């Protein structure tokens, strides 16, 4: 059985360096209300709800159960959760809709990085035997990848700086970093502060709907023509860090190479990672890359990948794109990658 599934609404919070005055559910709730308001749906109308978050960020066990308070999960709703970026929650919801288990889905994700030290927190996702005991932080691992790209002649520091500057020229009202930002000192050489994403708290949400239901809820639905995710070997020393075969394979399975896209929303937290992704996804100069600013303008952990899909869909909703690629990543040096291809009805 095949059903057309579309993103029919997207909402996101501002991404802020600290939201200490709000609990996670207090930060998330306005985003949930906004995304439901866009469709006129209520919680009770939603067939399946799926969320993405990570307890390590704020150091709060089972925080996603408290976040469910913001949905209104009683009487019990059909619900699931992934401990990673919300893009993977969207994938799970998409499978529910494709299989006919539901006609609508609410997908949301959120991350509060401000209570902890994000660079250190992220070391805990690494191989516990050979890597995590060395506490290599997220910027250090990205820097190893950036140096490999420079050594291979794929990029240089000037091009990396230009990627950061272009990302931050966005007019996205929710972005954390906008406008000219000094390229700064080396955080871990060869990456300067301008090559790295701001650390911030934020949330994102989308509503999915199937077939005619999507057309009822949205004037121009963003149809998911394909979606797939793939993973690299976990040991960094086994991988070619200058390439992303998992991204390429996911894109192929999602049908990204069948016809050109006009827009790509890439989840590249570091400038050097955009270089890898453009190569893997064969994105030419004619493609508008990250009009939202991408993760270099706002990188709420666990929400930034879902926001890429939401941003790509919103451009289709507004008629600014006809065929867009959205990418999400998780793990060090682009370890896991998800690619979705979205299209609007012909105008």
């Amino acid at each position, binding site marked *: 059985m095949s059903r057309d599934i579309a993103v029919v609404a997207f909402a996101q919070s501002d991404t802020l360096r600290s939201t*200490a*005055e*709000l*609990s*996670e*559910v*207090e930060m998330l*709730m306005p985003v*949930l*209300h906004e995304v439901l308001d866009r469709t006129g749906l209520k919680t009770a109308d939603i067939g399946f709800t799926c969320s993405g978050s990570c307890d*390590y960020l*704020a*150091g*709060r066990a089972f925080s996603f159960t*408290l976040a*469910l*308070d*913001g949905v*209104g*999960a*009683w009487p019990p709703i059909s619900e699931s959760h992934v401990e990673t970026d919300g893009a993977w929650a969207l994938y799970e919801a998409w499978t529910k809709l494709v299989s006919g288990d539901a006609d609508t889905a609410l997908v949301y994700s959120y991350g509060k990085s*401000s*209570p*902890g*030290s994000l*660079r*250190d*927190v992220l070391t*805990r996702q690494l191989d*516990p*035997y*050979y*890597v*995590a*005991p*060395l*506490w*290599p*932080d997220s910027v*250090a*691992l990205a*820097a*190893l*990848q*950036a*140096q*490999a790209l420079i*050594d291979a002649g794929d990029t240089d520091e000037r091009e990396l700086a230009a990627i950061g500057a272009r990302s931050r020229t966005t007019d996205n009202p929710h972005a954390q970093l906008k406008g000219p930002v000094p390229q700064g000192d*080396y955080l*871990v*050489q*060869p*990456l300067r502060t301008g090559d790295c994403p701001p650390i911030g708290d934020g949330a994102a949400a989308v509503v999915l709907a199937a077939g005619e239901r999507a057309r009822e809820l949205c004037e121009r639905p963003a149809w998911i023509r394909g979606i797939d995710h793939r993973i690299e*070997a*976990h*040991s*960094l*020393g*086994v991988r070619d*860090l200058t390439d992303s075969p998992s991204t390429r394979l996911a894109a192929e399975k999602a049908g990204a190479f069948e016809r050109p896209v006009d827009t790509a929303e890439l989840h590249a937290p570091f400038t050097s990672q955009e270089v890898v992704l453009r190569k893997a996804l064969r994105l030419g100069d004619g493609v508008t890359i990250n009009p939202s600013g991408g993760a270099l303008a706002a990188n709420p952990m666990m929400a930034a990948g879902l926001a890429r899909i939401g941003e790509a869909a919103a451009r289709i909703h507004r008629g600014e794109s006809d065929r867009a690629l959205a990418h999400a990543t998780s793990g060090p040096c682009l370890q896991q990658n998800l690619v979705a291809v979205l299209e609007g009805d012909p105008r």
Partner: protein
Amino acid sequence: MPEVLKAPLVVEFPFTRSLGPVQSAFLTALRQRVVLGVRTRDGRTLVPPVEYDPVTADELSDLVHVGVTGTVTTWAWNPAPRRGQPLDTPFAWVLVRLDNADTALLHALDAPGPDAVHTGMRVRIRWAEERVGAITDIACFEPDDEEAAEVTVHVGEFDDPVTGIVAEARLDYTYSPGRAQTAYIKALENERRAVGERCPSCRKVYVPPRGACPTCGVATSEQVEVGPAGTVTTFCIVNIKAKNLDIEVPYVYAHIALDGADLALHGRIGGIPYDQVRMGLRVEPVWTEDGRYPDHYRPTGEPDAEYDTYKELL
């Protein structure tokens, strides 16, 4: 906006992890200043060695010696070492392909500065003085200019193999409870009042409030003082002494519905023998002199509440 409450929160979790046969051989060999790789069926040597081929998923077991010297395949200069990292002075993160290995190992390189590091440079292991069978038995790498070593087969058997590691982890957070819980904590601490919040939709009063009604999914905002007295809705008898808790067992821990609240909170019951606590018992909070929250609840002496008055709160 009222002042935001904050408190340090330290999360520590020392996991004890068992090792597979390949990992055990690798870490045991490190203790003896030897590095082992594992051969794949297509003849590649993986270092650090893994139990299964990352490409084919074949189970791997052919261990070989590899060099204690190698070549940097990529590097990154870390000007500001962080807690737990191999060196506490500026160093380079490196991926090193040891001689006779086909894959690279992540570690630190002790070098005077970024100008002294480049891809392709030769490095050698500096061993830790005390070795326990862990990746940190390699203290770091240091620059080297010697010839590459020969490869030899190793049976991977040791008299006293390392069978597990303890993975220490500590993360430091600054905890903030958010708007609703901040208001609750402040009213309790400063005025000894229990202030809940009412859902604008279903009108239920939540104590302590968490900012959202879990039934309706909307923000709670209207503040409602509840209690101070309440009713035991259900309870248990605790017979095991908790670590660092100075309370004699057995004692009773109960769900208490404060008067006016639509959700029961937790509290210890005192001032009554543990085996006389019952559902419906009317209780009130007992504060210690400088307590920031009730130390426990004790009977008020009122007649027990009728079951019908609290059955919805169980």
